[in-house]
């Protein structure tokens, strides 16, 4: 038995906000009461197409489910549930989630074409450029992620790894994120250095992060503080040196 939600069906393209009378909705209703409380709103029934989906997923008949999921295992099923979920068939702006499932943009693509920027930072972007695919998945705390870099040998050759195994010198070993401040902006941000391999890529990401237009990239200079506490210009040193000795970054306005 499918649950019937007492909700107004939105006429395309927008949800009719006026017809949602939340004030008449006191404490949340039990399932049984909902059906009878359909007076305020027309019922939304799951249509035939949806029943098919439900049949595929609910019933234990292995033939139908295996046909839906056998190809590529998880990937095949992902596509199905998003493509056929009823609400995404409505005539309204199709959310970016649909397209992003097919998106194969490489995580380290540093092309700063505006449309790519929109995709990468799009509100529903599942894949972000943290070098590891999904943001925050699997749900392992940052400092636990680094364990697998260690040599999984228990033997005597298991050297005590330096605390800087990720190549970023002088930092607490648990994170590849460094703090970035911009002159004039009170709130510092953090950036994951492990996904960048050049000054150009890093600068592009920083420009995007702080919302600086690409029109005049020369007005800002990238500086960094090294392990000894000195502030240096990033472009004066090779990338490897920069990565190994930096502690934090700062964007300053260049004069002249």
């Amino acid at each position, binding site marked *: 038995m*499918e649950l019937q*939600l007492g*909700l107004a069906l939105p006429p395309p393209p*927008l*949800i009719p*906000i006026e017809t949602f009378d939340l004030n008449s*909705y006191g404490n*949340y209703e*039990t*399932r049984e009461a909902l059906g009878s409380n359909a007076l305020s709103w027309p019922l939304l029934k*799951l249509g035939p197409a*949806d029943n098919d989906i439900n049949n595929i*997923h*609910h019933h*234990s008949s*292995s033939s139908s*489910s295996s046909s839906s*999921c056998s190809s590529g295992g*998880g990937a095949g*099923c*992902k596509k199905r*549930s998003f493509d056929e*979920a009823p609400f*995404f068939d409505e005539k*309204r*702006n199709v959310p*970016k*989630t649909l397209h992003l499932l097919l998106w194969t943009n490489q995580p380290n693509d540093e092309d700063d074409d505006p449309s790519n920027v929109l995709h990468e*930072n799009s*509100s*529903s972007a*599942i894949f972000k450029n943290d070098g590891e*695919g999904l943001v*925050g*998945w*699997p*749900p*392992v*705390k*940052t*400092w*636990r*992620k680094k*364990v*697998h870099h*260690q*040599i*999984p*040998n*228990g*033997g*005597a050759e*298991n*050297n*005590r790894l330096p*605390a800087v195994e990720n190549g970023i010198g002088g930092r*607490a070993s648990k*994170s590849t994120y460094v703090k970035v401040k911009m002159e004039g902006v009170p*709130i*510092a941000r953090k950036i994951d250095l492990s996904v960048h391999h050049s000054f150009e890529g890093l600068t592009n990401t920083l420009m995007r992060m702080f919302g600086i237009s690409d029109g005049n990239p020369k007005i800002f200079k990238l500086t960094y503080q090294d392990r000894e506490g000195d502030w240096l210009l990033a472009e004066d040193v090779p990338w490897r040196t920069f990565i190994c000795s930096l502690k934090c970054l700062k964007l300053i306005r260049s004069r002249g």
Partner: protein
Amino acid sequence: MQKEMAYSFPDEVLKHVFSFIQSDKDRNAVSLVCKSWYEIERWCRRKVFIGNCYAVSPRMVIRRFPEVRSIELKGKPHFADFNLVPDGWGGYVLQWIAEMAGAYPWLGEIRLKRMVVTDESLELIAKSFKNFKVLVLFSCEGFSTDGLAAIAASCKNLRELDLRESEVDDLSGHWLAQFPETCTSLVSLNISCLGSDEVSFSALERLVDRCPNLRSLQLNRAVTLDKIANILRRAPQLVDFGTGNYAAELQPDVFSNLAGAFSSCKELKSLSGFWDVVPAYLPALYSICPRLTSLNLSYATIQSPDLIKLVSHCPRLQRLLVLDYVEDSGLEELASSCKDLQELRVFPSDPFGVEPNVSLTEQGLVAVSLGCPKLQSVLYFCRRMSNAALVTIAQNCPNLTRFRLCIIEPKTPDYLTLDPLDAGFGAIVEHCKDLRRLSLSGLLTDHVFEYIGTYGKKLEMLSVAFAGDSDLGLHHVLSGCESLRKLEIRDCPFGDKALLANAAKLETMRSLWMSSCAVSFGACKLLGQKMPKLNVEVIDETEPPDSRPESYPVDKLYIYKSVAGPRFDMPPFVWSMDEAVKILH
């Protein structure tokens, strides 16, 4: 007649009776009995717990409870642990400290979780509270060793300093030396999160020497194995110890020194640390293993045979945290050796690898469920699962209160039948009637949420990712889970309908997090307008949500109940849907 009864006890008597009531729930109930009980109770409440620092303002707390001695605050949403909450989101403690500095001169305990704590805050704590005893900074950030130095120097009767899992800027290693020679009061010190060169070991040794009540000590990774013996001999009364680095070339004298030091600790029940373990040094622990109730080996990259040997010496183990190097074979050994096991956490050694690197499957967890009848709390990362296994686990462990399963690849189906895992998780919620916390993973349809809504009556916290087919799923949870307090959802096809239909439910919960779902900006605005008791916040780092059509889904949404109104410290990428706040910054 009833009126006379209410006033028949003098206030002092009531106060005395209330002093035996410690739990917040009970205290809140007491305060609702009548006006005079409310008044008496509020003047004698000493401990306040605030699960969301934005649910109430410092001023409101101070106004109602003028004599607080201990406060606990939580800041960022749980998903901040996985980098889903952008930096600068909030959770600043400074304002709280500043207001409490004036109002609570006798404040003795501050416990914070996921908050931004600056050196300025720490310095303010150090100089404002003369009787300061306990500072716990759990998963906090924003401070440096300078702030710690201020605490060490000023807090003459400090009992607890616990920095677990916090991010600390290392500026100088000498803050430990700031503890005055007169400080002998330490009971608990946890500096395991500090980076390499942040601790002066000689200062630490002297501190341990002069604190005879030290019960809990967690060292950081920089402390080498050869130093452990020195510390333990100075503190044989330790109950809870976290080693630093547990690696060194095997030398007989170092080994026997270490083994002797451990055996002198007759009270030691809990061990952690164990970075970079050399298995040859594990037998040094054998003398204390029979007493161990808690073992955290989640940083120890040792293989199953060594783990099996260690665990088989610990028959009293109640809590085990371990990497998936333990494998199914290790868990089978655990199941046969440790009948008192209550909590098991298995972490992934290679979370981002596509192929499994260890032989850890659902079988390990099934074995533990069979062998350990007292199992209550599970956190398990694996790469495959079946409905049959979950049903078995549910039937074996009806006392589970926390069940968090993470199948590493999103939307992985039952590996035997290729079905969704609805039935398996359904069995968990059906059999485990006291389940309070549940995290889902694998291929899941709306059906699993129907089970959860039907059976999960005691469920307080639910974490959902890459699951469900439609709003029906979310509706099942919001309408069915009576005890739900925290709901966090990412990458699910849940949109406006269920949320708007269950808007009132949100006022009974602490918070709701939804990211990469399908909730439209229009729906967020509607919620913000219609629900004044909720703060509805939209997070978007790329552009203001109103620069796009209203039907466009928002990136991240955080809704929480609050009596303090919209907050004032929102960064540019957080938009409040409160009508009174201008949407455009």
